[in-house]
């Protein structure tokens, strides 16, 4: 049991570290959001699985196990919604991918030029 807990905890630490490093290094908002997803999926899941194994077989405290499972499911359900809201907000605020590959911008220009002018004034 100790070995399994250690392995999952180490996996969680590695992915959380990857998310942190990515968040510090990436060049624009969208890439940083991708790295924060890395932290919030396998980083969280590694720790939660380790904790579930420890509470179920080590502490034998079922109330804690159930709470941990609910916490993990809650993270998996809510994280994409928060990411999507932040990405849409950042895009509306004028953030663009730094490479210039941007089909959404192209479609905005071809369909509604007036709205695009307003955006450029606001930005």
């Amino acid at each position, binding site marked *: 049991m100790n070995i399994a807990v250690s392995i999952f905890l180490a996996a969680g630490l*590695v*992915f959380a570290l*990857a*998310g942190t*490093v*990515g968040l510090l*290094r*990436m*060049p*624009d908002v*969208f*890439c940083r*959001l*991708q*790295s924060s*997803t*890395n932290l919030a*999926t*396998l980083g969280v899941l590694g720790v939660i699985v380790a904790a579930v194994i420890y509470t179920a077989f080590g502490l034998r405290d*079922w*109330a804690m196990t*159930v*709470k941990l499972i*609910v916490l993990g499911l809650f993270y*998996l359900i809510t*994280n*994409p*919604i928060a*990411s*999507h809201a932040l*990405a*849409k907000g950042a*895009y509306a605020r004028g953030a663009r*991918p*730094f*490479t*210039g*590959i*941007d*089909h*959404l*911008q192209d*479609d905005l220009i071809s369909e509604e030029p007036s709205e695009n002018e307003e955006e450029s004034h606001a930005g």
Partner: protein
Amino acid sequence: MKKLSFPAFLFTFLLLLLFWMLLTGQIADIFRGGFSWQILAAGILVCGAAALFCGRFFAHEELRLLLQPKRLGALLVYCLAVFPWELIRFNVDMAVRAFSPGLPKKSGIVKIPTALTSEYALSMLANSITLTPGTLTVDIVTEDGKNYFYIHWIDVASDDPEEAAQAIKGRLEKWIGRIWS
């Protein structure tokens, strides 16, 4: 505003009550003998009020499709096998990308078509795509009855919408179509 149907209310209420029982630790208390009727009564009151307000947004008619065992099985396979595999694969890819020197050179927003139409299927696919690191749903639009995703991709392998769709959605769309089609 949509009218609240009784099955939607009941479904939301039972789900909320289940979470109430789990969070207050009452399920474990039933077996240990510390069960308290007062906590259950408070839970029924609170969950009833909450379900009265948000049941109409939470449960639609399409949810009945899950009563068919084939669709329920597909949902279980998707949640337990298909999606975790994709999640781990993309996570490792993204972690390598974060540690390797040099920044992503070809990230950008691409537009991909999807064959799905139902609301549950669309939101499930969008959330799955966002949850796999490396792809992030920015917007969903409907043009001429077809739905399109605008997706920020960390490594744009091809500009062609069909190839990009194949690379991003992979097996996910096929399984979601099997659940909700």
